[in-house]
């Protein structure tokens, strides 16, 4: 009997508690609606909702479990209501909660939402304990944040777009502490190793993008040691509270995924979204371009008033090696190379002849070279040479010299990532007006500051011309891709030079102004001396076009050229080449396309940087008797 009363009482209490919960939740939902919270900036950034072009909302998060309401992806109101009600849900059994992310209590899945509604509605929602989240946060202990930008790496123009990550720092983390902080990285989770699928899926959103938090030392190793990419670090002015909010949100979104699009919803884009959660008054998104280049997001961050408080440079292994080598004289350079590559007694005898401080720097440089050349390969003989060097180094109580990198320019200091141009010119027959544009990014003729030296990547760049034929513009050129990587020869870091391009190109030969589709490319060699880079390429040139016999032409040849950085603001590029058609047209002497002589080509471009935005360019071109010259004003943005 007593037991029955007791049970009834318990049931009554539970029922009352449930009713109270429902009442409290109803009340909060009403207040939230009254105050218009569902469309407040803070709520919209928490759910990554963006206004759609034809009204309504859509979240960029693709994981269904990021939403508590079935239609939460498209409805911030429904999601807010479901969230408020969810926060009142009864406690979840810890064993169940430990099983999966979604099994946790809504308060534990959405700590940033929870804190925000609690504060905003001054609501006393019974708080649940969230051991998984608490443990994760304890591991990170974030107090401030730094934006990290990975610059291009050698010989890989595709990497020129850069990569950004965020580092969560601890106050007074001290010497070496940066390495121990955590980096927040957003990257695609590739499910294929096939290069083609990899690329296509990476470009089109076929992979899921996920957040990870890695010790920064792993990212430094990846970028700095293995990929030889310099890192730029930009500490932000985020307060402790802002970092807290951002990290709480990272937990919410980190368990889900966002479809990864290389061109827009990529690493950089999602990091900006995170920063907006931390400080909702920031308006970093959207980036008003069809694609999001990490360098543009860096500019957005640098341009936001009072967001960045400093700038630091972390040289890659390659940059470090070359900087240290510059401190050596010629004999010491030879000695360091000998120690790294041979390591015989003779080399050590020469080393012993130097003063201790010089010995230290020669050994440090030799270890640089040994590691740079070795990469990840721990070949036994190399390990032995390295050990002998380190044992010698151990006997010298001189700390490694502090290196300086005065020539390093941050990646936001260069020209904008897109460009438009307008100008006029004339060829042998007529004058013309020209407009041009470039989707992204950078070429060899223009200003080089802020970009990897001697490296070109252009996507979707083209020119239109209006001639005396009438007001209808004709397509002169449309490059889908144009890539060049000149790697001036360095005995310590030899790299191949190469170039590739494909796109539409109008040929002006004889009386033919023929539009062709071309694919060209080839390997090359380059050397650098002072302000000059001299290069040569072997060229293969394949073209489809109506003017050719069989509508196809294959040609092979060679080019020789030079780039001359005359002053910081003007620059020459000059190139000549010979291209012999071996398939698809008659041999040059008999070719209808060859009334004007052998298949020689020469071009030169003079470039004058008026400012970081504007450039004046004077191109001159001679191709098999066709001559043209122009004057263009370029604007970068």
């Amino acid at each position, binding site marked *: 009997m007593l037991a029955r009363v007791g049970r009834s009482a318990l049931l009554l209490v539970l029922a009352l508690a449930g009713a109270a919960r429902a009442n409290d939740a109803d009340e909060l939902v009403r207040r939230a609606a009254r105050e218009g919270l569902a469309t407040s900036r803070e709520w919209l950034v928490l759910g990554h909702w963006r206004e759609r072009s034809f009204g309504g909302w859509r979240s960029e998060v693709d994981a269904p479990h990021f939403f508590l309401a079935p239609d939460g992806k498209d409805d911030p109101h429904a999601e807010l209501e479901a969230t408020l009600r969810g926060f009142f849900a009864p406690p979840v059994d810890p064993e169940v909660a430990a099983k999966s992310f979604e099994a946790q209590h809504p308060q534990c899945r959405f700590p940033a939402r929870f804190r925000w509604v609690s504060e905003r509605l001054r609501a006393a929602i019974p708080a649940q304990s969230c051991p*998984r989240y608490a*443990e*994760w946060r*304890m*591991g*990170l202990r974030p107090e401030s944040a730094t934006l990290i930008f990975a610059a291009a*790496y050698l*010989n*890989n123009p*595709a*990497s020129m777009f850069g990569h950004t990550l965020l580092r969560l720092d601890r106050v007074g*983390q*001290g*010497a*070496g*502490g940066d*390495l*121990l902080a*955590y980096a927040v*990285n*957003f*990257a695609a*989770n*590739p499910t294929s190793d096939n*290069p083609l699928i*990899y*690329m296509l899926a*990476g*470009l089109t959103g076929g992979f899921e993008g*996920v*957040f*990870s*938090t890695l*010790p920064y*030392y*792993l990212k430094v*190793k*990846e*970028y700095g040691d293995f*990929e030889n990419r310099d890192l730029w670090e930009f500490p932000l002015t985020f307060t402790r509270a802002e970092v807290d909010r951002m990290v709480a949100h990272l937990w919410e979104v*980190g*368990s*889900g*995924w966002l479809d*990864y699009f*290389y061109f827009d919803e*990529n*690493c950089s884009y999602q990091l900006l979204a995170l920063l907006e959660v931390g400080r909702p008054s920031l308006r970093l998104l959207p980036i008003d371009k069809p694609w999001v280049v990490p360098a543009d997001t860096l500019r957005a961050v640098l341009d936001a008033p009072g967001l960045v408080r400093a700038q630091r440079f972390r040289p890659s292994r390659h940059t470090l090696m070359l900087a240290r080598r510059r401190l050596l004289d010629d004999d010491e350079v030879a000695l360091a190379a000998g120690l790294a590559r041979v390591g015989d007694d003779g080399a050590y005898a020469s080393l012993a002849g130097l003063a201790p401080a010089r010995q230290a720097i020669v050994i440090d440089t030799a270890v640089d070279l040994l590691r740079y050349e070795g*990469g*990840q390969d721990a070949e036994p003989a190399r*390990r*032995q040479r390295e*050990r002998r060097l*380190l*044992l010698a*180094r*151990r006997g010298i*109580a001189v*700390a*490694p010299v502090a290196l300086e990198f005065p020539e390093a320019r941050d990646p936001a200091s260069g020209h904008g990532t897109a460009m438009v141009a307008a100008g006029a010119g004339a060829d042998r027959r007529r004058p013309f007006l020209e407009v041009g544009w470039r989707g992204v990014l950078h070429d060899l003729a223009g200003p080089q500051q802020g970009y990897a030296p001697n490296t070109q990547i252009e996507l979707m760049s083209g020119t239109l011309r209006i001639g005396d034929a009438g007001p209808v513009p004709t397509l002169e050129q449309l490059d889908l891709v144009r890539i060049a990587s000149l790697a001036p020869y360095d005995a310590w870091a030899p790299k191949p030079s190469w170039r590739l391009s494909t796109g539409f190109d109008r040929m002006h030969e004889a009386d033919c102004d023929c539009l062709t589709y071309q694919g060209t490319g080839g390997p090359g060699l380059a050397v650098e001396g002072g302000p000059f880079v001299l290069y040569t390429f072997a060229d293969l040139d394949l073209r489809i076009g109506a003017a050719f016999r069989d509508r196809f032409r294959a040609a092979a040849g060679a080019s020789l050229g030079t780039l001359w950085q005359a002053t910081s603001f003007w620059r020459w590029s000059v190139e000549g080449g010979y291209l012999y058609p071996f398939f698809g047209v008659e041999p040059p002497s008999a070719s209808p396309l060859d009334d004007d002589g052998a298949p020689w080509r020469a071009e030169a471009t003079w470039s004058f940087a008026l400012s970081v935005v504007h450039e004046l360019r004077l191109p001159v071109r001679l191709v098999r008797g066709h001559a043209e010259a122009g004057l263009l004003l370029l604007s970068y943005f």
Partner: protein
Amino acid sequence: MKLSLGIGAVAALVLAGTQMAGAESPPYGMAGCGLGSLVFKENGFVQVFAATTNGTFGTQTFGISSGTSNCVNAGVVKADKEQEAFVESNLDNLERDMAAGGGEYLAAFATLLGCQDSVQPQLYSFAQSSYPSVFPSDQTTAQQALYGFKIQASQNEIFARNCARL
């Protein structure tokens, strides 16, 4: 007598460390955390495409949505594995800093050992002088170096007192 005991202890610990690591190895097929075995893609043609997904190194191990492994929990290294994870991942740079008696990696290592700032300079020169015994061969593993260093440093009274996690 004391010395031989010390050496015996080092040997036993190093051995224990190796065995323990062996028992822990399944998730990675390697000693300790296995972070040292995360291999980066070689530079080359694949790298051109790798840029389209922006570096996938460690993404799975450190995904926030990833579960718990022996060393990492939801993307964060477990507190009791921080030293191992660091030494495994940075053995080459740490070795170099020890031989030179200074550098960022040695400083980070000292931080992980809980050493107060005041003893760090002493720790650096200690690291330099003990380099040959911490790295007795060119095959020294991360576990051997870590425990070798900790045992030798903890015999020094100053470090024993001022490095909380030695």
